[in-house]
């Protein structure tokens, strides 16, 4: 009987061991016997099989197929693309749980993995995978299934144009600052699709709240970053980061940074703006009917969005990968990113939830006005030649 996570891992490893032991004895002979029938040279098979245990050969093989570390495919799928983002998202989830737990005088995840529960995300993943996917009888099935996938796709597509260092990026665009914001504007629609398709009153209210929230934060968010654009005269993130060589934009654009930070909290539906999923009011909001890996994908999408927005904050206001030369640029970027992620997580521990009308009042009465003031500050600064 499997009772603990360790036993579960042990069982998986045991299965793997037997597979590796038995496959040369059974599977390979069959493969070598069958392959000549289809007219393929046996040496090709041999090479593929050797590559599976010889990394150097494997690398060469992958390069030949056009999937190497320098290929676009690798960039999109692995680094700095989806896998890396998902990894950061997973670490963020764990870090969030630990940080919140520490603030609340708890210990947080502790048992999965010997050290401070660092294997907890993996355990969570297995838990979510093992859960039954429940689709409500009266739900709109097609859209109900579409929402998690859309959420993840939305998060992943954000990664396309954001650079991690002068050399690490997937694609370059002159408008790489505008593209993420164009995509992010779509995210409340995903929430609404999920909410509507669930056919649940609480989910529906959550979806509507998400739409109202969009109205509250979208405009100040865009205007607050315009200040940076005014200072650099470019929509290209590369050039924006390059312009911060001498001074990070958080100093001339402090107000803009604060506004952008608040709107990030709002965009990510984090406390104090977690209205669309306010548990005690509307159960779990738009996530109410989602279970198992559906829920997992929705969450992963949200946390990839989290990563992207934290990254944007770093690039726009904290000088991106700029830093003393004794560390590679990407390390500087990730250090700053870690700080920004902490900053975004921490309000959840110390602030209560706001109400919808208060959020809209903050958005329209304060943030929009302040973001225009910030824009004027930027114009004055650029005309004075501060940068």
């Amino acid at each position, binding site marked *: 009987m499997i009772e603990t996570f360790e036993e579960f891992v042990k069982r998986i490893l045991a299965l793997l061991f037997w597979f590796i032991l038995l496959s040369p004895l059974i599977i390979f002979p069959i493969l070598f016997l069958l392959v000549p029938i289809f007219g393929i040279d046996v040496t090709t098979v041999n090479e593929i099989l050797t590559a599976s245990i010889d990394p150097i050969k494997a690398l060469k093989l992958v390069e030949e197929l056009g999937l190497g570390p320098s290929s676009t495919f690798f960039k999109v799928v692995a680094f700095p693309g989806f896998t890396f983002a998902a990894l950061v998202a997973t670490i963020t989830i764990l870090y969030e749980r630990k940080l*919140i737990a520490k603030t*609340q005088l708890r210990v947080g995840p502790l048992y999965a993995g010997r050290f401070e529960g660092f294997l907890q995300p993996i355990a969570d993943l297995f838990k979510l995978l093992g859960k039954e996917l429940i689709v409500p009888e009266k739900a709109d099935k097609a859209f109900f299934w579409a929402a998690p996938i859309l959420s993840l796709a939305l998060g992943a597509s954000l990664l396309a144009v954001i650079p991690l260092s002068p050399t690490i990026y997937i694609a370059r665009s002159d408008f790489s600052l505008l593209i993420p914001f164009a995509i992010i504007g779509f995210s409340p629609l995903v929430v609404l699709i999920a909410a509507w398709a669930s056919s649940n009153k609480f989910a529906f209210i959550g979806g509507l709240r998400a739409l109202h929230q969009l109205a509250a934060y979208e405009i100040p968010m865009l205007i607050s970053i315009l200040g940076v654009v005014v200072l650099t005269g470019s929509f290209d993130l590369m050039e924006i980061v390059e312009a911060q060589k001498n001074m990070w934009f958080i100093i001339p654009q402090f107000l803009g940074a604060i506004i952008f930070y608040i709107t990030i909290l709002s965009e990510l539906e984090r406390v104090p703006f977690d209205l669309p999923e306010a548990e*005690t009011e509307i159960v779990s909001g738009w996530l109410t009917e989602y279970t198992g890996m559906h829920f997992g994908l929705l969450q992963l999408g949200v946390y990839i969005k989290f990563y992207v927005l934290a990254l944007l904050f770093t690039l726009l206001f904290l000088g991106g990968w700029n830093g003393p030369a004794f560390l590679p640029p990407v390390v500087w970027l990730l250090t700053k990113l870690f700080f920004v992620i902490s900053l975004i997580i921490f309000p959840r521990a110390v602030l209560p939830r706001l109400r919808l*009308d208060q959020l809209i009042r903050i958005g329209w009465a304060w943030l929009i006005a302040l973001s225009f003031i910030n824009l004027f500050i930027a114009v004055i600064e650029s005309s004075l030649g501060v940068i």
Partner: protein
Amino acid sequence: MPNSVMNVVDQGGDRLVLHVGPQHPGSGHFRIIVTVDGDYIVDAKPDPGYVHRGAEKMAEYRDYIQNIPHLERPVIIDASGVTLPYVLAAEKIIGVEPPVRAEYIRMIMAELNRIISHLYWLAIYGIFLGHSTMFMWPMGDRELFIDLAESIGGTRVTFSYIVPGGVRNDIPINFKERALKTFDYFEKRIKEYEKIFFNNPLMAARTEGIGVLKKDDAIRLGITGSNLRASGVDSDTRKDEPYCMYKKVDFDIPTRQEGDSYARCVVRLRELQQSMNIIKQVFDLIEPGPVKQVLGGVMRGEPGEAFVRTEAARGTMFYHIVSDGDKIPYRVKISVPSFRNLIGMSHLLIGSRLADMPAIYWSLDYWPVEADR
């Protein structure tokens, strides 16, 4: 999408009927049927009774001692508060007088339980406003007080400690030192609570001016306990009609004039401090002596009736016991504060926003199990 449209929007035109509870993170064993028009609640009908166990009927089958573990079940987080009036009433029926030391120990126990219950309330109120730290901290600190109560009563929540004729055992020898140490620690914690929650502008924004219960309404609707005091009435049974030895201790009744959710929160926070203040005074007043009168045998009530009220954590707890001379009571009527405060809930909810529902609901400190009995 015809299916989902039909399900999401009710027949009532643009009004939405929400069944909040009994399976809802913000309800407890209890349901409020809320009709919302946009974001505003136009009708709220409380529907208690999900945990009704017929405590009054069952009390007619048990003798005066056996009723004690039974009657504390409805309010296990305030177990001494709920059994104290019962025991006082039963003592009047049986005709025994507890020793003085027992009266003081009863006060310690009742006040400890008030702290435990208020901390529980505070924790839930924190999470109802989405403040998860305010959930964890009071729950953790509550454990210290539970430990104190456990060292007297022997169990964590259901003590069955106060019995007719006194209390079941004396307090432990080192209890005073332990308690004072805990109080010193907790006084510091209250300052942290204030900083992170009560003085937090966002918390104030959520609760100030929300669910305003005016003084006249509070009296008219029969609101009791901290909710009444938050509306500007300094009514407290411990002062109005002192029982045990509350005459001898000196304490304040915290009141606020606003009558909103925030006022109810602050009144409860101040009551925590007053409870500790009372226990500290009791430590000075208490003198050695017996803690229980020797009764011997099964207690029989004299024919007659008694009604007793005390100030439990949620308000005035009232017992009406009728005896026909048998060893079991003829009729036990329990009037619990939650049940009386329930009437205020629909009064406050109508006209407020849906998002304010948890803020109003739990600021009344409504305990469904207590109300259902």
